[in-house]
């Protein structure tokens, strides 16, 4: 009470709780007492007696006139007016208030996107295999030039390359395309290796590309697929 004034609903809640705590158990008595006061006195004399309960009514007076006129009439509505006060407070502050006076979270509003009526990629916005291949080859060459194979670091190098290629492709990626990128790095030895890929996709909209790099100690193969998604 001595502190800066809380929003109305919390003040009234605090008052209500205090009055509740002084009268343990039922919530009937305080209301009845209020009720009894106002039946004994006329509405004009309400402010004179029972200063303990005055604040509640005074609070109601401070609400804009339209609401106070609603609340002032009779007693028997006093406990109802308590409930109404909360709801008015809710309206008053533009948010939704639960019965305990706490604010409810605003419901997350679903975003409805307008229908674009587009069933395929725009002309000129297809996944460009040649441009992607150039980017891929340039990335591999610049990153792996002079690098020696080492079992400890090459697994991280491999993952880093995949992420790097993906981030570069995201910049040039046409909209509505998903990208899958795979990188294989191995030690250059006397072994043979064969990497094959087959995919089920729409040849009109989707494409793939690959690049190979080799030096004295390691080899790398990068595969990128671009898939159209509505």
């Amino acid at each position, binding site marked *: 009470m001595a502190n800066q004034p809380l929003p109305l609903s919390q003040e009234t809640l605090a008052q209500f709780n205090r009055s509740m705590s002084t009268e343990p158990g039922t919530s009937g008595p305080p209301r009845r007492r209020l009720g009894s006061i106002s039946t004994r006195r006329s509405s004009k004399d309400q402010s004179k007696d029972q200063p303990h309960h005055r604040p509640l009514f005074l609070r109601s007076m401070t609400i804009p006139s339209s609401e106070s006129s609603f609340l002032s009439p009779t007693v028997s509505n006093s406990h109802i007016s308590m409930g109404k006060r909360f709801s008015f407070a809710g309206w008053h502050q533009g948010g939704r208030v639960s019965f305990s006076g706490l604010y409810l979270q605003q419901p997350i509003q679903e975003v409805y996107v307008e229908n674009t009526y587009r069933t395929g990629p725009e002309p000129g916005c297809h996944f460009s295999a040649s441009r992607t291949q150039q980017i891929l080859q340039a990335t591999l060459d610049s990153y792996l030039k002079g690098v020696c194979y080492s079992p400890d670091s090459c697994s991280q190098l491999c993952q880093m390359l995949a992420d790097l290629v993906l981030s570069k492709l995201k910049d040039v990626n046409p909209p509505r395309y998903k990208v899958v990128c795979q990188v294989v790095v191995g030690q250059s030895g006397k072994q043979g290796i064969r990497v094959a890929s087959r995919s089920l996709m729409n040849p009109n909209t989707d494409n793939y590309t690959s690049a190979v790099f080799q030096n004295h100690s390691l080899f790398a193969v990068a595969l990128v697929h671009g898939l159209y*998604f509505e």
Partner: protein
Amino acid sequence: MEEYHSGDEVSFSPDDASNVVKECIEGIVGGVDYSQNKVNQWTASIVEHTLTQLVKQGKPFKYIVNCAVMQKSGAGLHTANSCYWDTTTDGSCTVRWENRTMYCVVSVFAVAIAL
């Protein structure tokens, strides 16, 4: 007739896919040794069979199947992948298989399509 899944969004099940892949690998290079002449044929068969089996499931996905077969000679091999997609509906699965003379690594990527 194949079933079409309409309405609900189906998400990729990596376990189903890995079982399919293992069966395909076992069937093709199950008990044989690495051979330079035949490796082309093996990799082509593995990817083709795997893709066919996956498509038979009738789910609304585009698939990418990659297979790497490498001779065992003490050299190291690493694979990594990075994907830009919808993580709720799309997924991948990688199966590593080996025998006495070779390693086989098969990766399956499934990208959902809108129905």
